């Protein structure tokens, strides 16, 4: 039965509905696969008993001819989503054995639609990182290796567990979150599909906050259509999140396979960065050619403030993080250390509980918000952010979507960039602009580099126009014909 893990989400849902196999069958197959893949360190908590109980309930509903859009499908959940009665850590020591007494809105919608939870997936601590190396549980290992090498590669970050688990068939699909590229860069590094929808599509309620004006949930999946199926269940207005948009959720999957003829595709010249590997240049050119073949019109566009997106991000995100993470004070939950005075407890709990990168970002955030520096840094960054958003508005005058590479390189080796924060930050150079502007961005696998590693292309769309991205991604997916999987070594 273990080949049930190889199914796409769409095929699995069809098989479940047709009763070709049960939810318990496919859930068991995944539980076994997870047990055999512990070397990947993708899951930080396995919940097999809960999974089998949920699967049995799904089977009962399916037997009655009932069931929701994800009925019986086993999924992985990034450990940034609070799950009622199930430990949620953000991969930080400061949350310790925190067990939420509530369920995030996004995951509650998955269970409403009949999905089964396999467990909680590893990530960079508080989603701060691009390589999964800041996790208190240690890094996830990418299922992909370079040809002829057994060097351990990063799956990217922060949603490295979500991407690795999906790529290694340890779940049919996974939830993820993206503040600067944390869905799309791991998807690109693992040969999976990831979409960060428009800010406000998915409720942030119950997702452990990093930078609230940038954070957005989305899926990582095996195919474009699977990502569309997941996103529909994850999306929707929620009164508990004041920035959640009161708009209809389209049937995203219905956009996959639609003709893209006549769509105008912008190619931003500022995304041609120095030092970009020739393979990524070529992949980008391939993507342009595929869309041209599909009847799209290609236009060169300019997003002149692109190079300022990352520096602006590294003011806005740490500033918001320093505020959001002020709640971890050792009083109501999580780690409490030091004493006897209140200040000692605060300072010692936070010193012991947070990892180095999280501390670094809290310090930067505190600095840029502190008296005398607020205007020079934070206010300036918010103004530059407006300029970046205006660049996109300008681009939409002449095109309907943008095509870019997802990341400036293929997956790199663990330890390769961890000594240089800025080199690490540059991983998000092509993805962070959409977070600042609140726009949807999708990454899909489109080719491999000379060493056999997957490479991703990114599509960026207008606000709330995920449908067009799914149509374009469907066309690119067909043209690229990317079907490679990592050779199983784990």
């Amino acid at each position: 039965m273990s080949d049930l893990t190889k199914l796409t989400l769409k095929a699995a849902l069809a098989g479940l509905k047709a009763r070709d196999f049960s939810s318990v069958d496919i859930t068991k197959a995944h539980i076994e696969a997870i047990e055999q893949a512990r070397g990947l360190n993708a899951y930080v908590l396995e919940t097999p008993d809960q999974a089998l109980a949920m699967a049995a309930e799904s089977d009962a509903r399916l037997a009655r001819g009932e069931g929701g859009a994800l009925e019986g499908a086993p999924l992985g959940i990034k450990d940034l989503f609070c799950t009622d009665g199930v430990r949620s850590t953000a991969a930080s020591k400061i949350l310790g054995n925190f067990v939420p007494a509530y369920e995030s809105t996004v995951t509650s919608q998955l269970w409403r639609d009949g999905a089964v939870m396999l467990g909680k997936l590893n990530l960079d601590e508080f989603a701060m990182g691009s390589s999964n190396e800041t996790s208190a549980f240690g890094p996830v290992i990418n299922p992909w290796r370079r040809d002829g090498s057994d060097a351990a590669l990063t799956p990217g970050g922060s949603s490295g567990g979500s991407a690795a688990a999906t790529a290694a068939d340890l779940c049919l699909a996974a939830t993820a979150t993206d503040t600067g590229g944390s869905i799309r860069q791991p998807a690109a590094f693992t040969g999976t599909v990831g979409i960060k929808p428009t800010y406000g599509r998915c409720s942030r309620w119950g997702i452990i906050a990093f930078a609230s004006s940038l954070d957005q949930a989305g899926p990582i999946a095996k195919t474009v259509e699977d990502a569309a199926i997941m996103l529909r269940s994850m999306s929707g207005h929620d009164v508990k999140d004041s920035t959640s948009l009161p708009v209809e959720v389209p049937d995203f999957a219905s956009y996959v396979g639609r003709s893209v003829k006549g769509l105008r595709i912008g190619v931003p010249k500022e995304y041609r960065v120095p030092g970009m590997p020739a393979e990524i240049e070529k992949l980008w050119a391939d993507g342009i050619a595929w869309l041209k073949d599909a009847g799209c019109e290609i236009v060169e566009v300019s997003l002149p403030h692109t190079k300022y997106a990352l520096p602006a991000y590294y003011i806005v995100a740490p500033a918001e993080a320093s505020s959001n993470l002020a709640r971890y004070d050792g009083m109501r939950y999580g780690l409490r250390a030091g004493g006897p005075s209140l200040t000692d407890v605060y300072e010692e709990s936070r010193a012991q509980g947070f990892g180095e990168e999280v501390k670094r970002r809290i310090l930067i955030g505190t600095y840029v918000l502190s008296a005398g520096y607020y205007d020079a840094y934070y206010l300036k960054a918010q103004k530059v952010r407006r300029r970046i958003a205006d660049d996109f508005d300008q681009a939409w005058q002449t095109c309907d979507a943008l095509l870019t590479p997802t990341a400036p390189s293929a997956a790199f080796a663990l330890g390769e960039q961890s000594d240089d924060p800025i080199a690490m930050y540059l991983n998000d150079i092509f993805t962070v602009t959409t977070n600042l502007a609140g726009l949807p961005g999708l990454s899909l696998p489109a080719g491999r580099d000379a060493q056999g590693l997957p490479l991703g292309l990114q599509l960026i769309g207008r606000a709330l126009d995920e449908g067009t991205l799914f149509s374009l991604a469907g066309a690119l997916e067909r043209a690229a014909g990317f079907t490679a999987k990592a050779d199983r070594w784990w």
Partner: protein
Amino acid sequence: MAIDAATVRKVARLARIREPEERLEPLAQELNTIISWIEQLEEVDTDGVEPMTSVVAVALPLRDDVVTEGGDTSRILSNAPKSADGFFIVPKVVE
């Protein structure tokens, strides 16, 4: 604007994170590297640009001021490092 060890000490204090004395200088260097990279933002002309505080161009929604949930004391306290009689126990705040 160079950050020195004294600035790091002050910022760490504001952030309520204990940093040992020997970490202040290395942290100052790290933060300087990052801040000087960030300072390229000065090149951008932002005269008359309205700061962007939200990407969602909608007014903050309001709801009726009614109690919708509550009575969850035991669930709220379930993760407390220390609690008694329905309260969080914290270190003494006033002498």
